[in-house]
């Protein structure tokens, strides 16, 4: 899919921040991926390594953590956690669920020098 271009997006953010944050090397990048984000983590790892060759982030580690979506079950009237977009409420089995977020792809922080 578009993991390669997302990695180029990450690299550009690293390059853009190098000057303002005073660093020349990036050793680790921590990315938070929403549980429903349209992204394959394995593909992201693969592309990140390729995209970062011969750049300030060459060989940098990529840590991907998952952020859960906020889901509200209208039948139960409470917040629940679901695995997939098409899963029912784990408590009552209703599909009347409202999800908020869970599709962001964000860089959280960097280890640099």
């Amino acid at each position: 899919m578009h993991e390669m271009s997302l990695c180029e997006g990450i690299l550009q953010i690293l390059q853009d921040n190098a000057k303002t944050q005073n660093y020349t090397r990036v050793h680790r990048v921590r990315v938070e991926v929403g549980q429903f984000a349209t992204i394959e983590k394995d593909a992201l790892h693969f592309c990140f390594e390729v995209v970062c060759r011969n750049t300030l982030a060459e060989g940098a580690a990529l840590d991907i953590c998952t952020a859960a979506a906020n889901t509200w079950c209208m039948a139960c009237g409470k917040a629940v956690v679901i695995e997939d977009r098409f899963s029912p409420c784990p408590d009552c089995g209703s599909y009347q669920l409202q999800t908020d977020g869970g599709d962001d792809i964000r860089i959280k922080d960097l280890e640099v020098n």
Partner: protein
Amino acid sequence: MCTVCGCAEGEARIEGSTLHSHDHHSPESHETNHHYGHGPAHAHAPGMSQTRMVQIEQDILGKNQEYANANRTRFSDHGIFALNLVSSPGSGKTTLLTRTLTELRDELPLAVIEGDQETSNDAERIRETGVPALQINTGKGCHLDAHQIGHAVDSLDPPDASVLFIENVGNLVCPAAFDLGEAAKVAILSVTEGEDKPLKYPDMFHAADIVLLNKIDLLPHLDFNLEACLTYTRRIKPGIQILQVSAKTGEGMADWYHWIQATRAARLVGHPHSQSSSACR
């Protein structure tokens, strides 16, 4: 590939021209433009040799979102009602669109942006209806992005208060993630595709604002379970409107036109381009 959007640099084309080159990630252009991260003279700070943590908190799709927001503001300023049409290849999107254009062109100003990997066949089909159309070829890209749409709108210059149909690349995966600045995403699903498609491609159906279930004239010939399809779609997006249409026979198309007219009119309330605002004195 373009870092903003995923269009492959040098591949994406707007009909009649090539997209301007995306300078923002070629190393050469960084030398002349940005100077970020290239050597100690630019980026080295004394006493900073230890590794340290830097908080960034930056959205990786943020660039596309900036372009999308700019498009949305522009559409709003001109009273343009933009619809992003998404579907898998072969759902009858272009046939549905040409029929819509033919039947609405006397009532509303219309314009079309066509996205396909290659060829301008679809834009030519659209122009045969008399409606202005512009083709974007994404080359190796799998979706349209907000940046391409901004340039296409520059060239096409849709009339004020028009309905702008953006026919996205036939793909139920990637276009879900890329906001173009549209007022609504319209997902088109045909009954020849199988009733469980909303479950197989949940991201797209979750992102959609309305679903058109096309080719319903073929239902008697298929084992398509209509009720299951509606149930599955509403599992992904509770409360979503689903219109059953046939772009071939015209069945149900009036509902689709009503939706366009009503949604557009609601968005134009209080807008300088609203016809009703001049009528209400």
